[in-house]
């Protein structure tokens, strides 16, 4: 047993000196490898953290939202639906919501306009998200002018700016009074954007949704779990696009690694021949090459992962944010809460370390099985 440990120790010693001998090759491998892990790791951490962030926010979302459809498209809901929904057994409360989108040509951005249920701003006043304030350089008491549905300009005085804590959802948000909302969009006083409902028993959510669909066939009840799933798939899709692009980088890396790691130089082949001639076994030579691959892989993986962690959670993924956050041109500016999914880290490890180590070992094995007498003819 102690022989085996001494042997592995000696082989490891030789491996380290081998790595030091080929500094330029190994450093370039380390840098490219770390870069690939960094890019993949950043996409992974970012997507996961965003999904988690969105699901945390959605926990506060209403249990059920009821929308009206016309020709399969969204349509404002008549307010008389509200009473009919309230009368369904199991529904504790129901309320209407007023919200919509506005495209601001001056900033080239889409905003979300909303009437808050509690403490709405006074008429003529507006509360804006941090992103809008930043984008249009607005402060309290500044005047914002928007063109309404009928072409008439509406002026709003900035009453407050939303805090940055909730910026993921509030960057492009504007809060106004109900009267201003209806005037601005030309929405009838007898209609609302949608209806939100709460139920007594969570297990009955689907049953109640079905009852609403039967009672009001032109409506579509959306329950919170469905919203969470939609958000998940949206972020998965965004992450997926990035991962497709990154896969190309990954493929280039594999080719690079194969070329660098597998293309044993004449010098390396000669060394393998010498080692075999002086009594090293094929397995000893493979052990050296495996250790070499594993050491480079491991350190590059750790470095790439640490850099990705810093990039995503300390700099809020400044390199990827425009591609992955929101769909508006107003990008939220907030610190992502660190969250790591161990399963994904393991997958990333297997996708990088294993192929690289294999790329190192296979050609070494092919060189190591040659007859040692070839070294006599060098």
């Amino acid at each position, binding site marked *: 047993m*102690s*022989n*085996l*440990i*001494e*042997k592995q*120790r*000696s*082989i490891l010693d*030789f491996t380290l*000196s081998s790595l*030091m*001998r*080929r500094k330029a090759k190994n450093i370039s491998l380390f840098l490219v490898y770390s870069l690939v892990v960094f890019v993949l790791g950043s996409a992974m951490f970012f997507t996961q953290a965003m999904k988690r962030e969105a699901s945390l926010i959605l926990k506060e979302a209403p249990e059920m939202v009821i929308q009206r459809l016309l020709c399969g498209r969204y349509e404002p809901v008549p307010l008389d639906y509200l009473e009919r929904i309230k009368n369904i057994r199991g529904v504790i409360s129901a309320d209407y919501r007023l919200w919509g989108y506005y495209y601001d040509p001056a900033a080239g951005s889409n905003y979300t306009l909303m009437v808050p249920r509690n403490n709405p701003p006074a008429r003529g006043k507006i509360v804006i998200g941090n992103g809008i304030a930043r984008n249009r350089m607005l402060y309290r008491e500044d005047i914002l002018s928007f063109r309404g549905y009928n072409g008439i300009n509406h002026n709003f005085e900035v009453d407050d700016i939303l805090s940055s804590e909730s910026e993921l959802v509030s960057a492009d948000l504007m809060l106004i009074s109900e009267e201003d909302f209806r005037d601005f969009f030309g929405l009838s006083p007898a209609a609302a954007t949608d209806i939100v409902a709460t139920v007594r028993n969570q297990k009955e959510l689907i049953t109640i949704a079905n009852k609403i669909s039967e009672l009001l066939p032109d409506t579509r009840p959306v329950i919170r779990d469905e919203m969470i799933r939609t958000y998940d798939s949206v972020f998965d899709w965004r992450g997926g696009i990035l991962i497709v692009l990154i896969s190309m980088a990954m493929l280039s890396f594999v080719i690079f690694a194969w070329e660098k790691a597998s293309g044993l130089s004449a*010098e390396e082949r*000669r*060394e393998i021949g*010498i*080692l*075999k*001639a*002086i*009594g*090293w*076994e*094929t397995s*000893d030579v493979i052990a050296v090459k495996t250790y070499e691959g594993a050491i480079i892989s491991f350190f590059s993986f750790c470095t790439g992962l640490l850099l990705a962690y810093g990039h995503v959670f300390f700099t809020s993924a400044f390199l990827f944010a425009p591609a992955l956050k929101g769909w508006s041109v107003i990008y939220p500016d907030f610190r992502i809460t660190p969250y790591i999914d161990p399963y994904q880290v393991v997958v990333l490890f297997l996708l990088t370390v294993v192929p690289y180590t294999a790329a190192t070992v296979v050609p070494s094995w092919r060189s190591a099985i040659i*007859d*040692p*007498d070839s*070294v*006599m*003819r*060098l």
Partner: protein
Amino acid sequence: MIRLLDVRKGFNLAKPNEYIAVSGVTLTIEANRVTVFKGPSGSGKTTLLSLIGCMTRPTSGRIELMDNLPLINGILRDNGETNRLEVTSLPERFLTEIRRRLFGFIFQQFNLIKGITVLENIMLPSYPLGRKHGFVTERAHALIDTFGLGARASAKVEWLSGGEAQRVAIARALMNDPPVIIADEPTAHLDSKLSVEFMEIISGLKNQGKTIIIASHDPLVFEAGMIDRIINVRDGMLYGSGT
């Protein structure tokens, strides 16, 4: 004693470039003697050394080892042998073990590993044996002192002169204290003075009881006083005192 029985070695068999390097060699090499294979380039000397040193297998024929067998007790036991071992049919791992324990090789080009120190190069053959690091270092330093390389122990081998590199190669061959030393054209890259020095070292090894087998066409080697036997090789066959 090492015995070769009708040994033949061919390369690229059944191909247009087929080449027979050793043809029907029968030979006995006595222990504790210095034997020299003498012959021109391409005569088959190096192939003979490779066959004797278990670096390659013959195409046909048998090679038997009869001395120092306790060093490879495990292999003997596995093969049910006691006083001799036929090596040509052994699997690669056994050949490696025999090479490691019984033979020390000195190559024509020295074949030292560049980028690592003299000390590390000398220690290399002992790594697969799993000996204690302290013991290995001590033995390597003793060899370094024996060959007057003390000041160069931590120098990289590419910085050495031809004579120094040759001595490192000899020290490496002796690292596992093998009973047989095989040297292929050991003086090919040395001037006359260094060649004489090399032969003095060989003389010392002979006095220690080592079996020395050298392939050379250098008169300084085969005319040296300590040579016990010269075997002429030409076209893969032995002439003169071949058997």
